[in-house]
Each structure stands twice: as C-alpha cells, then as structure tokens.
C-alpha cells in the first residue's frame, strides 16, 4: 500500500452543536489531481483549515506522508511540505511581488532568521523567486506592490507564493474565485502545468474547471464525505445530482 | 472579628461607590468600542467635561446642584454629537493607529483647554445638604454622598439593562454589535445608531465624571491620568457589553479600595497584575464576544 501524500482518519470538528467535519476519512495520493466539491457551507474550507492546522480538530488524525501531524503547529506542517492557498487572496499587500515570493522562499531556506546580512545578498533566493514569477507569466510586475495588480494576477501571485515553498501537497482553495472569466485561463493553465510530484487538492465550485483539472473527485456535504470517485462516475451519480439540484448541473 | 466585619463592610461600601463611578464612565466606551470598533482614548475627556460643567454651572451661574448636573450632561451630549459628526465619523473602520493618534490629539487639546480656562487646581464640588453628611443605617454611619452615588448607579444600571433588553433601540444596538453588516442589511440605520450611542455614552460619562469628582479629581490631566483605569474596566469587561463593564467595575472598584486599605504600599500594582491575568485568560474580556 503506497503511502498517501495526505490522509485523514476519522477527522471531526464541531462548533458547539454545529458539526463542520464528521468522521472524514480522506486520502490524497502522491501526485494526485484531486478535487473537493460540495454545496456552500459543506465544510470544504474548514477541512483545509483543519488539515493545515489553522483549526484544531475535536477528534481524528492527520497524516502527511505517513507521519502523524495532528498536533503539529501550522508552520511545522508547512516545513514538511503541506501548503495551502487562500480563497480570498492573502498576500503581503504593500510589498512588491518579488518581495512576496522571496519572503516565502527565505522562510523555506531558513534564511529569514538572519538579522544582520542584507536580504539583497541572498541573490540565489531572489533569482529563484524571479524564475518562479517568469514561469507564471508574472515577471513584468515583479517590482510592483501586489495590491496594485489586477485581481486575476493577484490570485496567480497567491499560488506563486505557495509554490515558492516547494510543496509536496498543495491545497488550492477556490483558486479562480472572484476572478473575471477573461483572466481564469492563466490560472487553469498554471494548475495544469504543475509538476507531477506535487499532489494537489483543489476546492472549486466551477465544474468545468473541476472536470478539466481533476482525475478524482470527493463530494463533501454538511461535513461528511458523500461519495468519491472518477469524474465520470461522480457526474453520473444520482445522489450528487440531487445535492446539486438547483445549484449547478455538471456538464 | 467585629473589626474585620466592619472593615469588610467599609471596603464593600466604598468599593461599590467607586465601581458605580467607573461603570458610568466606562460603559459608554465599551459600547462604542464594541459597536464602532473605534479606539476612543479620549472618552475620559467627556467625564472630565461633566465635572468642569457641573462646577462652572454651580459656581459661576449659581445653579442648584440638580439643574447644574443636568445642564452639564446636556452640554457634553451636544458637544459629543458635533465631535462624532465632524471627526470620529471619518475614521470608522480605519487604521487603529490613526484612531490612537486622533484621540490622543483630542486628549491633548482638552488638557490645554482645561488648563487655560480653569487652571491646574482640582475643582471643588459642593453637593447639596440633602446628600451631604452621614446617614444612619443600623449601627453604622455611612457618608450620604456615596450612598447617593450607589443609589444613582443602581438606578442607571437597571435603566440601561432594561433599555438594552426591552427597547427597539436597545435591540438595534445589540444586533449591530453582534454583526454590523447584517444589521445594516436588515435596514438598521447604523449611522444614526452610532451617533445616538456615542451621545448616550458620553452623557453617562459626563454624569459619572461629575458625580465621581470625589474619587477622580477634576484636573486638566484627567483624561490622560485615568485612561488606563477606564480602559481596564472596558477590556476586562469585554467590548460591546454593558454587563461586562459592570462586573469589571465591581472587581476593580472593590479590589482597589481593598488594597488601599490593606496594603497601601502596593497601590495599584495588584489591579494591573489582576488585569493582565484576566486578559491572558480571557483576551476578549469576561463578557466579550468570541
């Protein structure tokens, strides 16, 4: 049995009487292209928060490459390669794009604790950051403050920062959310071109995106997994149709 | 044993009176901070203005105590309306630092203005004979003025609580403190709500400042000198609550009185330590929102 990239066992979380996660047993295989879908309020973002350590579970275990990370703080999970992006762009607003990315790279390399040497001397890290921006087509804006970029490019920047951490497991929380349809192409392209050794889980509402990007889908409803499987099977599943009735028809 | 009981009653009485003053002054601050999310460091200035208003109306215009008190409160309420419209409104939802700077600026202005008009000496307050002297309860004598303070406090606290629970205005305030966007979307005029709440809070502060001149002398440095105490009551009680500051004021008032009686060398040190401990245990305050 190959080790899953990410696994949860019996993950539970309630806010008082409100359950946001009920006994979730989830597996994300290495190199997976996995999608998590479900109606609004299903608990998808809460799941990501639980897995990354931003939220403490009431019960259950979380395993990363076989290691139990349930009690590790968020930063420690990031160091082990578990990285997320945010539904609403969470960037270092007034800092430049290159600065945003190099911050992440510095943290990864452990350079960020240096109090004396100027950051500019860490040339390799800056060049790595620039190369990352080039790969994402963002190089032209490298020196601009991120809050001046078009929102679509901000979403790309968000992913760039996460990629700077060299993730093994990448959790993409609605990467195209709020992006005008003309700009989503770049984001989709970028996700498609992600290296095969990164396992990603994408939370999305846009079914077209989901079917294009994922080869496995998990459906979450009210904190529990309803069904899991290949895209065609999910599309044909009667329960899923019922859940989405009136919301969206899978194409 | 009789001494201990006597001391305890004394501490409870004077502590309660101080608590009422602190509560009256701080409750407005708690609600406006919880409602508008605005760090109003200058709130003490309204209390000070109440004190100066009372002494001036009594001393210069020779108005009787009750009338002067009402007059002082009205003046402060009107002034706070104007200030809210002109200044505070601009910084709602703004940078915390801007709010700190602006309200510190207001405090400084009040220090300068108060020194200019009234000089540095503490203003004397002369309550009417009716509430001066001692009153006899059981086997003990209690200062009448402080008894009056406690009575006032209880009446106002009850009024506030009833007002918050039973009136439509109170319901709107509670809704807005809980979730401002939601309150706006169901049609509550939050702009008007802010103005009214601000005015009410300032009026209560003026009342507390005027009545409490016994505990907190009316001097130009009032707003700055007492800032920490008011903020302690608010922070410990919890923002946006009217119950919270009451409990906090009781705690602080009795503790302060007790320590001054039992261990005056330690002064306010333990109040601060207590505050720090409570805030570490409950960062949002005892009754703050999660």
């Amino acid at each position, binding site marked *: 049995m190959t080790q899953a990239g990410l696994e949860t066992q019996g993950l539970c979380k309630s806010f008082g009487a409100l359950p946001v996660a009920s006994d979730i047993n989830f597996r994300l295989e290495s190199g997976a292209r996995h999608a998590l879908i479900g109606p609004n309020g299903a608990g998808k973002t809460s799941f990501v928060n639980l897995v990354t350590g931003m939220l403490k579970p009431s019960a259950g275990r979380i395993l990363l490459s076989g290691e139990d990370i349930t009690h590790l703080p968020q930063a420690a999970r990031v160091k082990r390669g578990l990285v997320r992006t945010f539904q609403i762009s969470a960037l270092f607003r007034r*800092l430049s794009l290159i600065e945003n990315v190099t911050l992440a790279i510095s943290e990864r390399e452990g350079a960020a604790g240096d109090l004396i040497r100027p950051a500019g001397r860490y040339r390799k890290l*800056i060049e790595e950051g620039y190369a990352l921006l080039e790969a994402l087509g963002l190089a032209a804006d490298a020196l601009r403050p991120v809050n001046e970029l078009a929102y679509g490019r901000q979403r790309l920047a968000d992913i760039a920062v996460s990629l700077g951490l060299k993730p093994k497991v990448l959790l993409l929380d609605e990467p195209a959310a709020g992006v005008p349809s003309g700009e989503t192409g770049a984001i989709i392209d970028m996700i498609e071109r992600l290296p095969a050794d990164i396992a990603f889980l994408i939370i999305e509402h846009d079914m077209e995106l989901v079917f294009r990007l994922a080869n496995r889908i998990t459906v979450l409803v009210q904190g529990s997994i309803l069904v899991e499987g290949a895209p065609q099977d999910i599309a044909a599943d009667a329960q899923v149709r019922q859940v989405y009735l009136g919301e969206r028809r899978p194409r | 044993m009789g001494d201990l009981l006597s001391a305890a009653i004394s501490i409870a009485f004077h502590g309660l009176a101080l608590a009422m003053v602190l509560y009256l002054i701080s409750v407005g601050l708690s609600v406006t901070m919880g409602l508008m999310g605005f760090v109003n460091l200058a709130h003490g200035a309204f209390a000070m203005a109440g004190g100066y208003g009372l002494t001036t109306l009594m001393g210069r215009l020779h108005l009787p105590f009750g009338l002067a008190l009402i007059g002082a409160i009205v003046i402060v309420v009107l002034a706070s309306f104007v200030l809210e419209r002109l*200044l505070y409104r601009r910084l709602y939802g703004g940078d915390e630092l801007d709010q700190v700077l602006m309200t510190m600026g207001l405090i400084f202005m009040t*220090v300068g203005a108060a020194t200019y008009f009234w000089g540095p000496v503490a203003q004397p307050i002369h309550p009417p004979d009716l509430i001066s002297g001692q009153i006899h309860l059981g086997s003990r004598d209690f200062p009448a003025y402080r008894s009056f303070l406690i009575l006032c406090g209880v009446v106002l606290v009850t009024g506030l609580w009833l007002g918050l629970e039973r009136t439509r205005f109170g319901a709107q305030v509670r809704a807005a403190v809980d979730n401002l966007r939601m309150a706006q979307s169901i049609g509550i005029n939050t702009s008007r709500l802010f103005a009214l709440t601000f005015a009410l809070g300032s009026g209560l502060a003026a009342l507390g400042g005027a009545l409490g001149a016994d505990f907190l002398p009316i001097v130009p440095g009032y707003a700055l000198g007492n800032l920490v105490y008011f903020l302690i009551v608010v922070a410990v009680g919890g923002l946006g609550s009217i119950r919270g500051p009451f409990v906090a004021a009781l705690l602080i008032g009795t503790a302060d009185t007790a320590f001054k009686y039992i261990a005056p060398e330690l002064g306010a040190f333990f109040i601060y330590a207590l505050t720090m401990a409570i805030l570490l245990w409950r960062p949002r305050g005892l009754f703050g929102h999660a």
Partner: protein
Amino acid sequence: MAAADQLAPPAMLDGFARRHRLRAFEALPWLMALAAYFVFPDYLALGAQILATILFALSLDLVLGYAGIVTLGHAAFFGTGAYTAGILAANGWGEPISGLVVAAAAAGAVGFLSGAIILRTTGLTLLMQTLVVAAMLLELANKATRITGGADGLQGMDVWPIFGAFRFDLFGRTAYIYCAAVLMIGWLLVRSIVYSPFGRSLTGIRENVVRMHAVGSPVRRRKLVAYTISAALAGISGALIAQTAQFVGLGALGLERSGTVLIMLIIGGVGQLYGAFIGVTLYMIAQDRFSTIDPVYWYFWIGLFMIFVVIFARGGVLGLIERARRQMRRPS
C-alpha cells in the same frame, strides 16, 4: 507591456538586491547634526535630548512600523533603562558606557519577559497589555521610594567622564557628541535589521500575519526577538537621557512619554526609518519654542496638529514627501 518584459532579469533584480546600499540623502541627518553643533552652540543640551529621543523613536519604529505591533507602553523600556542607569550612577557606579550596557540588558530583559507573556494577543487586548505593563512599572517606581526616589525623582546621580577624559559640561557639548555617537550605532543596528531577511519577515508579519503563518514563519518568535531588541534600544535611549540630565523622574515611565514618542513617530512617518529623525526633531523643537512662549498653549496646539495630521497628512511628513514625488513623476 513588451518593453518591461525585455528588461533583463539581472538589471531588474539589481535594484531590488541593492536596496540596502547607503544612499546620498542618508548622510543628510548626520550632516545636519554636525552643522547644528557649530551653528547652535547654545542649544546643545536640547540637541542631545533630541538625538537620544530619536533613538527611542527608532526603537518604536522597529516594532510598530516594521512588525506592526501597536504599543502605548514603550516608556516601560525607556524608563527601565533610565532608572537602571540612574540608580547605578546614584550608588557609586557612574561610568557611562557600562551604564548604557547594563541599562540595555535590563530593558531588554523586561522586553523579553513582557513580550513572552503578552505578544500572544493582538489588537486592543495587546494595546491594553502594553499599557498595563508600563503602568505596573510606574507603580513600582512610585512606591520603591528608597531606590528610585519615588515621586520626587532620583537624586544624586554622579556620572563620570566618558573614557575618563570627557566630562559632561554645562554647555552640553559632551552630551551632544555622546548621544550622537550612540544614536549612530543604534541607527546602524536598526538599519541593518530592517534590510535583513529577518526585517523583511517583520514587514510580512505586519502586512499579513495569517499568510506568514501559512508560509511557515515562526511568527511569535520573530515578534519576540524584535520586541526584545526594541526594548533594549529604548532602554539605551532612557539611559542616555538620564545620564545627560543627571536626573530621572517618574515621567520616564509614564503614559505621556509613551504617547508622545508614538506621536513623534507618526508625524515623521511610520515604517520608513527616517520618520523618527524628522518627527522627533520637529516635535521637540516646536515644544521647546512653545514652552518659552506659553506652555499651556502647547498641549492644545499640538493636539490640534495631531488631528490635522490624521485627517490631511496620513503617513506623516515622509508620506507627504512620497505623495509629492509621485505627483511630480506623473506626466501632466
């Protein structure tokens, strides 16, 4: 934008990688300080105070402008440093430089301990805690009359000549040069921290702390380190004032001290290193002028000015300069 794409990566990155290099205008404050020594020989005592207070404001900028920690209790560290240096000098050890070192250590320790306890909170609660820490220290100093002099202040300080040779003279010449030298060292330290990867991570914490956690940054540790260093520097600043005035009063720990340094920094411009230089100089010169005219007016007018700054000149003097530069760059 095709033209920008063709900008060779090395050239574009060079500017970014060389941000830390000293630029011509950075010599300006030092040239001005040097000039002031000769042009205003009667005001060197005030000048020394200004220089020491700039160090205080710089220390505050490190936590406020760069790490985003809003504090109204920075006088706690200033005052600790002041009283430490003062108590040493009043009890037989008046050597100034070692006094500075001990003051820095004491203030740094207070910063470390209080930071470890309170930096887990943010926002209003943190603001409160910073107030409370300073208030506690003030109360301690007030009550420990035998050590601190209580409300009368610490008397009997005897500060020895620097290096055994340079006596603190009545004109403030020694004090001025002393403060300038210490400020220069402090400024170099803060400057290198600000441009270091650590300093950059502080700005990350300020801009989006949630994201900093999400990139694996040990946020609490970083904040604590910044807070401790800032406290030590503030302590040095307090010790400088104590040594040059040969007196320490309760005001060194007071809310007004914490408030005014914050105001000075905001007037100059937060988070841009030189805001401290500009804001402190403007404020203290203005205050000095006003106190000769009428001290009562000072509070009123500075209060009005502060409100003016908030409404019309957000970002302080440096902010205004920045906006003016952008206006000039725009083609008409």
